[in-house]
């Protein structure tokens, strides 16, 4: 009795379709993302996964070419500077939103005005706070006026400002819009099942824009927060594409015939933020600059990069991405790996017996533990708290931890105002609350003359590193693993573009 049923069970198991999707057979793509999206509103969902999905559902006025970094037409066909404060955009005619509404200047005016208003709650205020007002010159021409001269304006227009349909969004309200979004992008939202959802190709997507014409008919997005499970799904073929694969798994994954795995550069930088302002602990030892400098000396950044980052990862010395405009790395004070010096500094500061700190992190537990061991060697006991990305960042913003080993992608914007501008600004991100530096950073965002901007940022970087408010760690390499039959180019700016992908 038992023997026969066992054979039947095996036979049934072999005959089962192990993959729910057909991939190349029906021109669909199944991808696995790690973060749950609270909604599809691009101004609220600013996590990296949210940025990726937003780029598929919505368009900006301009498209920055991922290879050349040139600006190309998207929803705007031409643009010009009218004066120091004003940019004018000619809008593309004949574009429709996913629900059939026509795209006009009114949509641009409404979207930017609504989200520039702090009350709306856009999560990255740096992306919108520079906007003073938006005016429609006519149906297809629009002007954006900034409060002060803002040299990085086009970067933000291309990177952070998706356009929403005014009529629809007002009708369903912001919360409704976040659950049922409508945009002009190459994909529209299909079915939503819990954390999973489907993106369907927008048949009516306009031609001639920087994003081209999408080839893949359907993208099934699955929420798999657990890295090991995502890797398992790639191995078994349950999923066609995923990222956030640990660097040391890449060579072995790439060795498999049905998988391509590679490391892509990003503009993301990792850093350890120190709560010198004492939000988590008013008596924090981190208030003393010598303690912060000691921590900088205690961490073996070269060792961590060599062993735990992989790919093109490298140590950074300034609190920004080296290729961003305004990231003057030469101005930074460099702290060599010197545990003996660290101990000296701690003793000088009166902490020869060490103390305990809470550190939050999310990206890579091994790196967090490596830092923990480095600091333990100089007498600082660190309790590591690993959470998901958003929760981890929130714990830093809410002042619940002393140190945050996190990273920042600057929304892939190639300007230091998106890096230091988001952390030395007195916002919940700011753990230093250094008014002198904050003033310099704010001013540098306003100055038009490039050389003066560089000088201001150089001074800010010098002060920030001298006062050791951070431990600038390293650049992040992103591990991608996907079906070997997929034409996919690992993007330099960490925004995978499936509208440029296709099956072999």
């Amino acid at each position, binding site marked *: 009795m038992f023997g026969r049923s066992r054979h039947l069970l095996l036979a049934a198991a072999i005959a089962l379709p192990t993959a729910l999707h057909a991939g190349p057979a029906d021109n669909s793509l199944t991808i696995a993302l790690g973060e749950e999206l609270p909604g599809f509103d691009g101004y609220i969902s600013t996590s990296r996964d949210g940025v990726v999905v937003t780029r598929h559902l919505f368009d900006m006025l301009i498209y920055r070419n991922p290879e050349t970094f040139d600006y190309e037409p998207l929803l705007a066909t031409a643009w010009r500077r009218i004066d120091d404060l004003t940019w004018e955009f000619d809008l593309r005619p004949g574009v429709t939103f996913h629900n059939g509404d026509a795209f006009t200047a009114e949509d641009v005016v409404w979207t930017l005005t609504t989200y520039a208003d702090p009350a709306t709650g856009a999560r990255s205020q740096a992306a919108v706070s520079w906007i003073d007002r938006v005016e429609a010159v006519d149906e297809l021409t629009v002007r954006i006026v900034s409060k002060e001269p803002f040299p990085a304006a086009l970067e933000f227009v291309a990177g952070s400002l998706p356009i929403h349909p005014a009529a629809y969004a007002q009708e369903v309200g912001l919360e409704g819009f976040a659950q049922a979004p409508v945009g002009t992008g190459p994909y529209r939202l299909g079915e939503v099942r819990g954390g999973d959802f489907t993106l369907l190709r927008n048949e009516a997507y306009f031609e001639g824009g920087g994003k081209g014409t999408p080839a893949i008919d359907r993208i099934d997005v699955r929420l798999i927060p657990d890295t090991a499970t995502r890797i398992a799904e790639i191995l078994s073929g349950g999923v066609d594409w995923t990222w956030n694969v640990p660097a040391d798994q890449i060579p072995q994954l790439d060795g498999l015939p049905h998988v391509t795995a590679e490391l892509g550069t990003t503009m993301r930088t990792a850093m350890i933020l120190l709560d010198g302002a004492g939000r988590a602990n008013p008596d924090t030892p981190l208030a003393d600059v010598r303690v912060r400098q000691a921590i900088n000396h205690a961490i073996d950044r070269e060792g961590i990069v060599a062993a735990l980052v992989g790919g093109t990862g490298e140590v950074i010395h300034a609190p920004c991405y080296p290729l961003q405009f305004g990231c003057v790395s030469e101005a930074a004070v460099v702290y060599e790996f010197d545990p003996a010096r660290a101990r000296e500094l701690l003793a000088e500061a009166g902490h020869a017996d060490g103390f305990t700190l809470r550190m939050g992190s999310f990206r890579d537990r091994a790196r967090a533990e490596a830092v923990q061991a480095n600091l333990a060697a100089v007498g600082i006991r660190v309790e590591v708290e690993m959470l998901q990305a958003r*929760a981890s960042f929130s714990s830093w913003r809410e002042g619940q931890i002393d140190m945050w080993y996190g990273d920042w992608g600057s929304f892939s914007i190639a300007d230091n105002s998106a890096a230091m501008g988001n952390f030395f600004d007195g916002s919940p991100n700011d753990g230093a609350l250094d008014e002198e530096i904050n003033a310099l950073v704010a001013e540098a965002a306003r100055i038009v003359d490039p050389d003066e901007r560089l000088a201001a940022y150089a001074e800010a970087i010098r002060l920030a590193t001298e006062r050791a408010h951070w431990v600038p760690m390293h650049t992040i390499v992103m591990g991608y693993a996907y079906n070997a039959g997929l034409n996919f180019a690992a993007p330099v700016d960490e925004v995978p573009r499936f509208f440029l992908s296709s099956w072999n």
Partner: protein
Amino acid sequence: MLSFLMRRLILSVAVVSAISVITFVLSHVAIDPAAGIAGDSATPADIALIRAQYGFDRPLAVQYLAYLGQIAQGDLGRSYLTRQPVADMILARAPVTATLAGLAILLALALAVPLGVLAALRPGSGVDRLALAIAVTGQAIPNFWAGLLLILLFGVTLGWLPISGSATWAHFVLPTITLGTFATPALMRLVRAGMIEVLEADYIRTARAMGLRERTILFRFALRPAILPVISLTAVQLGFMLGGSVVVESVFALQGLGYLAWQSMTRADMPVIQAIVLMVSLIYVGLMLLADALNAALDPRIRAAQ
């Protein structure tokens, strides 16, 4: 019997109340609920505003009563993270957990009953030893380890079964095996012990002496009384599975209540944690009550003892 049930019912209500008080106090004391609702972009002024708006500055006892009132209306609050109503989140995930637990208990019974009966029919034999060995081994394997090994073997190496998600019934195979086999040993031992005891009874020997076939004796006379204690243990095990599902759902990325509970705990999403602990406790208590009631109803000795 009725008074027994009434007493147990009152006790159950008291238990659930106690649990709700404990979780309420813990979650409101550990994290400032106003900060949680305000989110991480909020200024202290925003937080103070929300505290007044939601009444978090009232005495804890008053807040608890208000909380009870909300529950009575089906309002379990909103998640700090997604701002969705917790009741909706729970309803959306409950079917997955229910399916998993149901399938797991069926698997456990399907394995435990035949094995236990076979072992009882020939105590001390090879079959019996094997069954006991399986029981002892099964109880010692950590179920999350078993889950990982199953994923490695059947999911990745052999590629026979899907690894994560809950789209088709095939997705439930590995999780069910992982969860169900954990309950099998205890159930099997109970079946075996019960069967052995019954098979030694006088009336069975009489039936044998009268020449009835073994099979008839087994199914018509022995099985039913031996199964009685198993029924109530099954209810208890079903309750265990609700707790064990946290681990299994995490390993297999099944979007059920257990996974939601764990995710909320790693994100300090208090309203969700509170609601799930309350829900699961309710179900648990209900199952205990059911088990006791079944026991009392089916076993005359217990009733007589009351």
